[in-house]
């Protein structure tokens, strides 16, 4: 359940300690000005010393074969500090490859993912639908454009979804454009293909694998959301303890206390939903709807409870806020997931 095993606790502590040293607010702001929008040195350390990219990869392909809950631990820590890193794209690609179960492709690609090679899946269409893909196939050549591709312009391994199947495409021949989003701590790109050859991975109808991979991706993302929400609330509580008005810390005013108490209740419920999704006892759609809205609420309240300082560039509040809205839309909005879940229970 919520309690971590000893290894999981060690993993969490290792990631948290590293990020505490090398990914504080100043470091994050420096990282987003890097060419790829993240700190490649930090990513290398995360991969080499802690092995975060190997977690979601099976042992026989050079990975650790950890469960979804263990992968969540890393995402939650990265979410807390808003550290930009190609972890989520890596998790999505690994999940898709594992689900496709194509021995050749796995032997070729998964070891590279496990070693920290940046991977991306070009999947969503312009309307932000993570469905059967955004490309058309004719004579094994792919044409179309995918949007909201996590780490898409950085990837050295590029998978694309077309007509419910998955293809490997040479990143060098894809038109890839970094999309400037409000969430500066997340790298998104548009991937355009114009009659580009692709190498199919897995079956011609890979919808089942796509569904499973989307679930895995969502499970990872909700942990990141819970991490960001937890940090946003901690920062806010800390601020209201030291900020004085009318001669008292503003955190002693009952109306503000009660608002933060409600946020804490919301956070706890979101945490439960995220962890339960990892263990399969709650539908990932439920967790995505719940955690997205919890983070949006908490980040919005973070802005309001900080007062004027929150709408300055120097303060981190707006970064959490933008992450909240960016990740709510990523992999399908709360509304999409709510409807998806409605079709399951009704």
């Amino acid at each position, binding site marked *: *359940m*919520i*309690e971590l095993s000893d290894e999981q606790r060690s993993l969490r502590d290792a990631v948290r300690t590293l990020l505490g040293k090398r990914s504080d607010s100043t470091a994050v702001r420096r990282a987003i000005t890097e060419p790829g929008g993240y700190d490649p040195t930090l990513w290398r350390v995360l991969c080499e010393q802690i092995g975060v990219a190997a977690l979601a990869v099976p042992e026989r392909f050079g990975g650790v074969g950890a469960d979804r809950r263990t992968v969540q631990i890393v995402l939650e820590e990265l979410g807390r500090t808003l550290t930009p890193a190609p972890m989520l794209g890596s998790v999505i690609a690994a999940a898709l490859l594992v689900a496709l179960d194509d021995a050749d492709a796995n032997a070729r690609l998964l070891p590279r993912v496990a070693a920290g090679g940046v991977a991306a899946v070009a999947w969503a269409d312009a309307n932000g639908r993570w469905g059967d893909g955004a490309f058309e196939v004719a004579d094994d050549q792919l044409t179309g454009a995918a949007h909201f591709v996590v780490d898409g312009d950085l990837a050295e391994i590029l998978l694309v979804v077309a007509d419910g199947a998955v293809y490997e495409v040479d990143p060098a021949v894809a038109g890839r454009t970094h999309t400037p989003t409000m969430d500066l701590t997340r790298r998104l790109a548009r991937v355009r293909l114009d009659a580009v050859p692709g190498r199919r991975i897995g079956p011609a109808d890979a919808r089942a694998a796509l569904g499973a991979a989307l679930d895995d991706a969502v499970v990872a993302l909700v942990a990141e959301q819970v991490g960001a929400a937890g940090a946003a609330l901690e920062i806010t*509580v800390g601020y*209201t*303890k030291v900020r004085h008005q009318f001669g*008292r*810390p503003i*955190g*002693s005013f*009952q109306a503000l*206390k*009660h608002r*933060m*108490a*409600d946020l*804490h*209740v919301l956070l*706890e*419920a*979101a945490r*439960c*939903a995220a*962890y*339960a999704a990892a*263990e399969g*006892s*709650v539908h990932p759609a*439920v967790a995505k*709807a*719940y955690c997205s809205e919890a983070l949006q609420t908490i980040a919005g309240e973070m802005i309001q409870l900080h007062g004027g300082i929150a709408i300055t560039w120097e303060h981190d509040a707006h970064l959490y806020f933008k992450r909240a809205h960016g990740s709510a839309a990523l992999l399908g909005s709360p*509304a999409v997931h*709510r*409807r998806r*879940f*409605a079709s399951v*229970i*009704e």
Partner: protein
Amino acid sequence: MDLDLDEQTTAFRDEVREFLRVAPRLPSMDTPDGFAAHRAWEHTLADARLSVVSWPREFGGRDASLTQWVVFEEEYYAAQAPLRVSQNGIFLLAPTLFAHGTPDQLRRILPPMARADEVWAQAWSEPEAGSDLAGIRSRAVPTEGGWLLSGQKTWSTRATYADRAFGLFRSDLAAERHHGLTYFMFDLHADGVSVRGISQLDGEPGFAEIFLDDVFVPDRDVLGEVGDGWRVAMSTASNERGLSLRSPGRFVAAACRLVDLSRDCADTALTDRVVDAWIGARAYQLHTWATVTRLTDGGRLGAESSIGKLFWSELDVALHETALDLLGADGELAGDWMSGYLFALAGPIYAGTNEIQRNVVAERLLGLPR
């Protein structure tokens, strides 16, 4: 995060599930007939040793683990079995007895409680002391061999038809606030006690006022030390098997009924709220199970119980509001959901108002200044 059930617990669950197939539908326990029927149902439960599963065997239980207790509760709600007329005793008084009672008190009081031969009412609130128990004015004056209790208690659940009651009285009249209080158990049929039912919204006296006028209580019915009543009462106020950890099965069952109601609804604005209610019920269930696991692993339940209270009470209101909106004009005809809604609205009130729970969360969990 489902409860991991070992073989023994699975067998227990199957036994409970099988037994509850015969669970009857009873009239409201706030009517004389309904009260008698609920008492009889408790006898049936007790005969199967299912009335107080977590208690030691010698008092009528079966030494069930906390996980088994939660399993029992989940099954009980899923089966829509009758409300527990003995809930004040088994959820509120018994934990305090286990913590502070003498061996004699345990032997005398627990077995008849387990069979509902004695049904208990709580006598916490007073007209001038709602959620603020420290404002208690009822007093206990020492006399030979015991005490004389006087004063007025209100919002006493079940008191109209119950046999006995428990509550705090001011035994040191010079002391203030939460000092000088003592925890007493007393007979509702004793000389000097009169009980007046308070009609609730459905017209039935689920609550009552209790008037006490020099009611004699022997020393052996003092629970804990004289003057130590506040600490005794508070030690189990966030009791894990009481109201603070309300069985999530109740809300999951209500959410399922809501899903049924919405089956033909094409209005996404409404079906979204149904999904939200379902998600909320599930989130509360997960949170409760996580708490149970933590307690099983040796943790203590403290201020976190306030989270549960805030969550279920707000959820209950949302569940009923959604149902009424689904029913539309039909909901206006007197129906279960409407009554349920009114009681749901009372949820944020009893067992400590949500305003107080928010203070607890803010101060004790978030460390915000007073």
